[in-house]
């Protein structure tokens, strides 16, 4: 039985549905990240787990016990808010100890608990200050301390780092990973930053339009997405999508034609009944820039360079193909990018196919299309 089980959960405000039939199981100690575009329902789902939001239908169970009707504080969850939500009129000690004081613990117990947490988060010197006298990163640590001190079964984070500047965000991210390793507690983390999601997650849950699009280890989602949304959302820069006009069965595979204009290619894919139009998904690193002259076998495309992003070790080249399709290609330091148009070679062994409904078309014989 999973540690935290979300089963057929839906949520609607009046007639407006926000979450639809969410099924998700989370193991003890896992670091789970909910990621998705703004308004897709991540916060709502998190708040339903915490108990701050009611569940319209379905059940949420923690350690086998359905918690739908259990008070937030009794669920053993603790939450860190994007706004930190520290109590401005209390000292840091008062903030961290608030939950313990509400539970009527003894003074000695509270003091030792707070001291322990302050040690973990390096808050010792700040305990007598008030939230107004702290920096953003320090406030964030206090908010985490307030969650840790209650020794919850599940930590919930709602975009905790989005108010921090880029450098601090990277540092806090590392601290969070370290914290997770030390405490070993289940953590659920909401973000709409997919880089944050990739780096933190044991299990990444991509959401969109009130549904879970796919859940799994970040690299699985990167390499083997279930649909076009996940493929496009995970990875930066984004995956390229090439339109394909027709698909015809051929011996041992399918023949594609009308790829981004008039490209043709043979795919050794066991997919009887597959008909076009479809889309080919290709990561920027699976496209090669060819020297201006020379001929090789395979699928070639030609594109006009619109932008080159130099990142030092590598660069990303943005191109427009003849039919208007936009492409992003990764190039190494040694690539010659001086020409206004570039010839691209496409490695179809990494190509993913998507139907026009956005679903992934998988090979029926092998694991990869």
């Amino acid at each position, binding site marked *: 039985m999973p540690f935290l089980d979300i089963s057929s959960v839906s949520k609607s405000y009046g007639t407006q549905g926000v979450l639809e039939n969410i099924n998700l199981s989370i193991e003890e100690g896992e670091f789970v990240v909910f990621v998705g575009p703004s308004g897709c329902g991540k916060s709502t789902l998190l708040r339903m787990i915490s108990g701050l939001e009611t569940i319209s239908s379905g059940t949420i169970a923690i350690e086998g016990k359905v918690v739908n009707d259990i008070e937030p*504080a009794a669920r053993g969850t603790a939450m860190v808010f994007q706004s930190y939500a520290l109590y*401005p*009129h209390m000292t840091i000690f008062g903030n961290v100890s608030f*939950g313990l004081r*509400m539970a009527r613990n003894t003074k000695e117990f509270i003091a030792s608990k707070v001291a322990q947490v302050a040690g973990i988060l390096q808050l010792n010197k700040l305990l007598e200050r008030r939230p107004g006298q702290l920096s953003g990163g320090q406030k964030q640590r206090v908010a985490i301390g*307030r969650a840790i001190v*209650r020794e919850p079964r599940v930590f919930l984070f709602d975009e905790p780092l989005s108010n921090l500047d880029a450098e601090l965000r990277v540092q806090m991210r590392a601290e969070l990973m370290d914290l997770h390793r030390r405490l070993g507690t289940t953590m659920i983390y909401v973000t709409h930053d997919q880089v944050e999601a990739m780096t933190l997650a044991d299990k990444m849950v991509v959401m969109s339009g009130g549904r879970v699009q796919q859940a799994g280890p970040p690299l699985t989602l990167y390499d083997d997405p279930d649909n076009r949304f996940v493929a496009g959302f995970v990875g930066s820069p984004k995956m390229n999508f090439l339109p394909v006009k027709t698909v015809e069965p051929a011996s041992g595979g399918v023949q594609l034609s009308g790829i981004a204009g008039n490209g043709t290619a043979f795919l050794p894919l066991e997919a009887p009944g597959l008909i076009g139009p479809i889309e080919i998904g290709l990561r920027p690193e699976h496209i090669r820039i060819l020297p201006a002259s020379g001929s090789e076998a395979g699928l070639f495309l030609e594109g006009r360079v619109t932008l080159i992003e130099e990142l030092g070790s590598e660069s990303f080249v943005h191109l427009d193909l003849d039919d208007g399709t936009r492409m992003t290609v990764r190039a190494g330091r040694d690539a010659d990018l001086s020409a206004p148009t570039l010839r691209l070679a496409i490695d179809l062994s990494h190509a993913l196919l998507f139907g026009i409904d956005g679903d992934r078309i998988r090979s029926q014989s092998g694991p990869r299309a």
Partner: protein
Amino acid sequence: MTVVTTRPTIWTVLKWALAILIALIALFPIWWMVNVVFSMPGEPVSLNPRLWPTSLSAGIEKIRVIFTETEYLRAYGISLIYAVLTIAGVLTFGSLAAFEFSLFDFPGRRILFGIILLSLMVPTAVTIIPTYLLTSQLGWLNTMHGLVVPGLASAFGLFMLVQFMRAVPKDMIEAARLDGASHFQIYWHIALPLCRNAMVTLAILTFMQTWGNYMWPLIVSSKPQLYTVGQVVGLFNSPLSHQTVDMVMTANLLAAIPPLLFFLIFQRKIVEGVAMSGTKG
């Protein structure tokens, strides 16, 4: 901070002149009162106005006489109890109701709040007779609770506190809920401290209002034992009073002192409170 000094323009001079003029007009009656009180009995007061008091001891003697030989001291006590009980009630009921109205949703919330706001617009003169009848039917005439209870729920106070509590972030309330605070504990430990300034302001305004309230005490208590300062001063002022002008002035001055003191002590809080209403807790 750098201090930038600029030469005063004609406008600043005019503004200041006007402000000083208004202040003088407002202060003069009080100063005149002091003048009359602290002078020998029988010294002419109205014609040829004197601008300075002449005798400290004579004034102190008048105050002593008022406190020891009239009902004044008891009235002071009654007024004080009346004000303190009213303040306690207004703050308690106002903050409890404001907590619910501003931070939680419940059926009928908007309508109820609308009705309360509407009651702000009804003049006291309209409600005072029904209130009197109700109080009298309860048998509360000539009692302290008859005096206090009708003033306990203040629509204005509720409105003001709601404005303040609306500014308390929802996240903070939810954080407290997750921390295991009960509904009342959230009110007590989070909402109340966060609108402390508003509470102080409301307390001061309520004090001023109750202390200066003349009509209701007059109506509800006919027995001299329950007279408030306002009523006693009214007696001094009445045409049949056998008090001399300077004694009447002394009574007036003594009545004016508590609100003045209150205001001077809490002036900064009042300004802060009014300025901050609705922006932050």
